[in-house]
């Protein structure tokens, strides 16, 4: 009788065997406290060494938005989209949530090797907590955005409430994004060098500071391809909810729902497939 049969006969289980996907998600859910606490603590730690501390959570996006506002407002001149400032703020803030989720997700396994090598827990908690951390960062920015909307005389409507489901969908999408990038960087460390370029390109093609409809008006094929760009869809949907003159079309809703659920499921499966591999050094 082989040792493996002997072990099975006594009800022993193979160590490190990947649990089924449903078990895996259940285990992760059990330790959700860890993911939340980890993101809160790392947000605090990230700002602890700065004199202005957590004020940077608001200062940084404000500076960013002001700079983009001045530069693009000046360059674009008359071809500025309607309601330019709220338009731009929505774009910049939501975009930074996605790009940071991608970036932090990519480093979530490789950057926490001390934790991965010494404790056992479902590894998906790490990319998840990276996204929670970005979400915590996003909230003061949303406050800032709403302040800007009020200052620029936007009407307060019930449509603003649509922001809640939109944020929820964005969270799902970003989690999918982080799970995929976390696994990819584990396989190929070099990818972390390329991610800044990926986000740069995404920034320029997602209609953050220009109106896609105006610019691509003469190129119907490009325009219809663009409509499937998830970043554009989310930002345009949020603009529909908040900014005067923009609509939440059913197409945008469907596109966002499909993207977020689709990518979340894909990301979960993709990440879970090599759960045993995380923590290996090669």
């Amino acid at each position: 009788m082989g040792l493996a049969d002997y072990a099975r006969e006594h009800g022993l289980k193979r160590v490190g065997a990947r649990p089924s996907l449903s078990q895996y998600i259940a285990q992760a859910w059990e330790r959700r406290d860890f993911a939340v606490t980890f993101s809160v603590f790392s947000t605090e730690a990230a700002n602890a060494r700065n004199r202005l501390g957590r004020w940077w959570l608001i200062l940084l996006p404000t500076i960013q938005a002001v700079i983009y506002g001045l530069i693009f407002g000046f360059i674009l001149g008359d071809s500025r989209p309607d309601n330019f400032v709220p338009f731009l703020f929505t774009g910049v803030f939501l975009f930074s949530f996605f790009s940071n989720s991608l970036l932090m997700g990519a480093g979530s396994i490789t950057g926490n090797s001390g934790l991965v090598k010494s404790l056992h827990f479902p590894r998906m908690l790490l990319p998840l907590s990276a996204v929670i951390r970005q979400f915590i960062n996003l909230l003061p920015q949303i406050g800032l955005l709403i302040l800007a909307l009020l200052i620029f005389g936007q009407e307060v409507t019930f449509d603003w409430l649509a922001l809640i489901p939109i944020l929820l969908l964005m969270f799902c999408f970003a989690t999918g994004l982080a799970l995929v990038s976390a696994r990819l960087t584990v396989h190929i460390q070099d990818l972390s060098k390329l991610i800044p370029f990926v986000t740069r390109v995404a920034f320029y093609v997602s209609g953050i500071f220009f109106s896609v409809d105006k610019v691509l008006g003469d190129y119907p094929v490009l325009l219809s391809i663009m409509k499937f760009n998830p970043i554009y869809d989310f930002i345009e949907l949020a603009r529909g909810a908040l900014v005067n003159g923009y609509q939440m079309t059913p197409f945008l809703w469907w596109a966002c729902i499909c993207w977020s659920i689709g990518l979340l499921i894909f990301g979960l499966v993709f990440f879970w497939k090599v759960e045993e591999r995380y923590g290996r050094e090669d």
Partner: protein
Amino acid sequence: MAAKTKREERKPVVVVDDVHIRYKVFASGKKASGAGIRKGLFSRKLRLREVHAVKGVSFVIHEGESIGVIGTNGSGKSSLMRAIAGLTPVSGGAVFSSARPSLLGVGAVLLPNLTGVKNIILGGLAMGFSRKEINSKLDSIIDFSGLREFIDLPMRTYSSGMSARLRFSIAASRDHDILIVDEALAVGDQEFRNRSEARMREMRDKAGTLFLVSHSMKSILDTCTRVIWIEKGELLMDGEPLEVVNAYNKFVGSDTID
């Protein structure tokens, strides 16, 4: 072996079945030759080198045993322990166990930028405690570590001995069915080592299984009921503590037990 037939009747808790561990690492072209150093950034040839760290080790551990693991540096002990804990995937063979083994090793601090308290909380949550449980245990963990004075400092400011204390205290706050202690106490002072060894014996007596990797033959003899000697990735000897330790001492050329 008479001892073996007696063991056969007890319930196995860990079965290591022909485990192989290979690492693939990028290594520079030449082995430790001075010429390699002078080469430029781009001319360096990257070559995939395979390190066969563990070469087909098998053994069965039964309930209530505590196992000392000895061997010279680089013999594959830690690789094997990490495989038993499921933190390093095996390249061949398999490890079976009745419960998920927990590994307590040397090495990196958990989260260097967070304070000791926050590391305790996060470590506890990762081990599966609820927020409430960890809050109620917090005081006793800090007391056990003896680091109350420094507990609000970021862990990156800790000495290696202090962070070893903290990590052991976090891990020891829970009863483990199978605990692997991999030289985690080597950097601790004698006072803490005594306290930790007492805690390990207590865990062992609660029907827990303990693996202790150590270069201190005294610790091994004090705590273990069986000793495994790994050398160059192979299982060289497995048996009564004193017998194996004596053979090992002869091998490394030391004549005192310390």
